[in-house]
């Protein structure tokens, strides 16, 4: 079956603009994760969903970041008033359930460049 898909693959935006990043998880996966990969850094955890619920939003870098998930499927990460430090690759992953022993399947990522 299809893996995790993300769109767009690349996004270039101007500072101050809002952007939406989309993630389509593997069908049947109830858990969905967002990570950020900055140049030279590892992956930074942002937020996770169990179904449509995001119990802990403390990993989001600022209140300009928000995320939602609808129908237990597609998720959108929104960054408002983008800043240059938001430039990174945003990775989405999904798994069968919320527990560390479940393998997380990653999408190819969205490369965000803020000019």
């Amino acid at each position, binding site marked *: 079956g299809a893996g995790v898909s993300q769109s767009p693959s690349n996004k270039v935006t101007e500072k101050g603009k809002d952007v939406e990043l989309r993630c389509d998880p593997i069908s049947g996966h109830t858990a969905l994760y967002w990570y950020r990969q900055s140049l030279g850094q*590892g992956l930074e*955890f942002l937020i996770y969903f169990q179904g449509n619920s995001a119990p*802990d939003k403390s990993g989001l870098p600022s209140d300009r970041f928000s995320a939602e998930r609808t129908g237990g499927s597609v998720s959108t990460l929104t960054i408002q008033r983008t800043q240059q430090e938001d430039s990174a690759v945003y990775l989405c992953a999904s*798994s069968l359930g919320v527990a560390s022993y479940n393998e997380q399947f990653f999408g190819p990522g969205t490369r965000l460049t803020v000019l």
Partner: protein
Amino acid sequence: AQSVTQPDIHITVSEGASLELRCNYSYGATPYLFWYVQSPGQGLQLLLKYFSGDTLVQGIKGFEAEFKRSQSSFNLRKPSVHWSDAAEYFCAVGARRSQGNLIFGKGTKLSVKP
């Protein structure tokens, strides 16, 4: 707090040579341990994982890793590297009681010389 350290940012090995990538973790108990590989322009792919039991685990593409509790290490090894192994490798830990997110190291980039 949990953390993962990958001491080597970049490693170059010759094709056919053996490989060992280092990973040290900080966690109060035995965590779940993972190695992922990221090829250019690709998402992360799971190579192998350790949960419990035999401390030497086998993964895909001929990779293996050994969990050493006394050293808080989970080093990745391959006896003979192929040019297609050139990629970035990430070690990650997951807490046994957690929301499921993984803590990643900063990665080791592997280059392979012909």
